[in-house]
């Protein structure tokens, strides 16, 4: 059985963090597992943690009255789910649903924010990583807005 320290250290999201820093994060983390169809969180719930996906696939669903529920993104092994814990009002904007057996490390948001407040270097290192994830998701969403696979050519 691998320790939380090892699991976090080998996850791409934490690549480059030294052993002591990862050790600080371990205090805020715990292992979690979800079966297919189970929700990691639901839209509107308090965003009190984020998830480092070790195995499986998580779908981010959006729903609204009168509209069919849709998957707008998926996160696989090596990815991270959730950044609403960083931004007030700290509420989830989407549902996160396991589509396969999911093993993840859940990191407590309040605990982590406290550590970041005490150690700005840690806060900066984490913000760089979260910003990287947000940048990729934003680019992905923007490029998909182009409806790439539609046709712009008649013939």
């Amino acid at each position, binding site marked *: 059985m691998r320790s939380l320290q090892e699991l976090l250290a080998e996850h791409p999201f934490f690549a480059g963090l030294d052993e002591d820093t990862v050790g600080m994060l371990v205090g805020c983390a715990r292992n979690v597992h979800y079966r297919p169809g189970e929700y990691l969180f639901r839209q509107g719930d308090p965003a009190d943690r984020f998830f480092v996906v070790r195995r499986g696939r998580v779908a*981010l669903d959006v729903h609204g009255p009168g509209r069919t529920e849709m*998957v707008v993104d998926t996160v696989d092994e090596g990815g991270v789910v959730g950044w609403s814990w960083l931004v007030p009002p700290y509420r989830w904007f989407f549902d996160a649903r396991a*589509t396969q057996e999911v093993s993840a490390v859940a990191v407590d948001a309040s605990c982590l924010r406290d550590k970041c407040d005490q150690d700005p270097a840690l806060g900066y290192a984490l913000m760089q990583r979260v910003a990287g994830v947000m940048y990729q998701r934003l680019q992905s969403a923007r490029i998909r807005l182009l409806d*790439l*696979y539609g046709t712009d*050519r*008649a013939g």
Partner: protein
Amino acid sequence: MPVDVADPATAAADALLPRPFRVVANRRETSDTVTLELEPLDGDGLAFAAGQFTMLQAFGVGEVPISISGDPARPGLLVHTIRDVGGVTRALCAAEVGDVLGARGPYGRGWGVSDARGGDVVVVAGGIGLAPLRAAVLEVVRARSGFGRVHVLYGARTEDDLLFGDDLEEWAAEPDTEVAVIVDRAATSWPGRVGLVTELVRAAAFDAPRTLALVCGPEVMMRFVGAELTARGVPASQVRLSLERNMRCGVGLCGHCQLREYLLCVDGPVLSLDAVRPQLGIREL
């Protein structure tokens, strides 16, 4: 094979004459896309290289360039996968078994699949772009032991827009072969990935310096995929793109398909990223 245009007048006389082909199958792939199987009326098969195209004609309606999606090892069966996007393609998609269509070609330079022998192959397709790549994958699969790891990475708008579902399953069953599919958006019943095809490139395991990447899809997509592949370490000279312009004659005479110094019908449609990267960044070109 590319047409010799040293004597344009002679070349034009032969190369502009369509040959009659009979439709032997019309298979619906998606709501707007069909695959036609055609046999030559004169019995002479049409030998082609993966990545080449023909000028396909619905008599009395018009002619359009369509990539060949069939198996290069079966020249007796001309296979085209066609999306209904206008008058001519609508007529082609509506062709019934027994109808006769015209075809000229094959034209252009193909993927050069054999250049990948001994190394890894990464095939990246977007939407209808899987059609010309199907011929390349079939060639690789037929000589599977001659290549290293093979990745077929395929992006589509939705699950309903996915082509060649049976092929994707068969390819995935090949040894050391990964088939990964991603869609832009999906119903919650979809168990697969949702996102951008570049994410598949990022996640794939391949030996970048020894990889030949074959990419086909909308040009914007190919720009992003090319950037991701080179960021992963694949040399731009080993990233090949299939480009589309307004091809008319198919033999380098009319100039409609010119992309700066290239006439895509004879110099392409497959060109390496290092050759066309500057052009891809120019607006309206």
